[in-house]
């Protein structure tokens, strides 16, 4: 089922935008799946296995749209593409590490996704708008979960607090990389496809600061006269395809089975 791009929307930036969305979901979904069988408690094992499945399902929606607009197939994008051509942010590829890091990363990502999807619900490109509405419905369960873990672990014991703070210190600059500007982004904003990464980042900061603060976690953000200013250097480059070793290892892992038997089916 082919889709047409309306004449006022630039095609290449639109495809880049969709692939970046899909790549973030696929890569984080894979990281989340690494907790299957290894999470500290059974409920979290189930939760992260479910979240992984959801995120990978969401990546499929964006990859499929990319294909319907003339891009490569979802399988090719996930299983055959060279890791150097992924445009996910560095944040999602970082190794899962401590469970505290996983919790903080998931929460920061979930809020990032929420502000992005909210903005996409009024996208001028109808297929994007419809997909965003559907995905947002499912994401409600993710954010409730990650937020409640942040609130509980931030304020629980000295150990949990210390580990959560260390996770925030590592994850926050990385998370800013979710909002790295995409090539051609201005044209998409002008065409009403989405509201632009600068605005999304601002909305994201305004959402995460009160929750993390209530969880006694400190962030490199100043608030003056109601305006929040970030004092951290964003870990960027992923959207330009400047990927790190972490992603290389992840993609090798992700593609192992497929490459053992290309074109095979269950």
């Amino acid at each position, binding site marked *: *089922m082919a889709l047409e791009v309306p004449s006022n929307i630039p095609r290449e930036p639109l495809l880049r935008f969709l692939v970046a969305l899909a790549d973030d979901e696929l890569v984080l979904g894979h990281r989340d799946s690494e907790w299957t069988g290894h999470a500290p408690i*059974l*409920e979290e094992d*189930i*939760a992260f*296995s*479910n*979240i992984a*499945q*959801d*995120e*990978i*399902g*969401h990546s*499929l*929606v964006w990859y499929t749209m990319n294909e319907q607009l003339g891009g490569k197939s979802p399988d090719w994008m996930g299983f055959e593409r060279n890791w150097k051509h992924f445009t996910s942010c560095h944040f999602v590829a970082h190794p899962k590490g401590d469970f505290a890091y996983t919790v903080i990363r998931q929460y920061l990502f979930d809020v990032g996704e929420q502000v992005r999807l909210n903005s996409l619900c009024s996208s001028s490109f109808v297929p994007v708008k*419809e*997909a965003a*509405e*559907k*995905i947002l*419905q*499912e994401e*409600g*369960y993710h954010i*409730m*979960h990650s937020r409640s873990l942040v609130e509980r672990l931030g304020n629980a014991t000295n150990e949990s607090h210390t580990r959560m703070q260390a996770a925030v210190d590592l994850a926050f600059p990385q998370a800013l990389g979710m909002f790295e500007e995409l090539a051609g982004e201005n044209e998409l904003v002008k065409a009403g496809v989405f509201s632009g990464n600068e605005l999304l980042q601002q909305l994201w900061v305004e959402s995460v600061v009160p929750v993390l603060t209530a969880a006694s976690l400190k962030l490199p953000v100043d608030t003056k006269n109601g305006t929040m200013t970030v004092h951290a250097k964003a870990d960027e480059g992923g959207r330009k395809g400047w990927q790190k070793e972490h992603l290389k290892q992840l993609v090798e892992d992700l593609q192992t089975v497929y490459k053992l038997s290309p074109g095979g089916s269950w």
Partner: protein
Amino acid sequence: MVGVEIQKPTLESAWEALSRIADPEIPVLSLVELNIIREVRIVEMRVTVEMTPTFLGCPALEYMKKEIKDKLLGLGFDEVTVELKLSPPWSTDMLTEEVREKLRVFGIAPPEKRMATLAEALQKPVACPYCRSMETRLDSPFGPTLCKQIFYCEQCKQSFERFKTL
């Protein structure tokens, strides 16, 4: 069988066939009862089925597509196309009372109706599908499949699944 005319498939027979395909994870419900079949269109001997996913990452989707194709080809159509439609998003509010009761009998607590926020809907007490006690608690916000959560009944001391409100 000389002299027996093979019946041409119709819109009615297509819907009837779809109403006999069970959800692989909740076999007491058919795809039609789940309300995921949006439209069936026939042009000559080609049929197109518009389907909407419950959860986007649901692994049963591919299986359902294959079942639809197999069943409709079996009716005699030359070509079967399954199109996925995301809008309007599928919602558990589309499940009828009859379907909710089938879920309960199967041992799955039916979903709460949607409220202003998801959190509000999830705060509503949940009745145990086995003994109907309201003395239940959420054990895990996620469950064995994407569409379910795990609860525990303090009254009959059993775990049970609850369909997520979507």
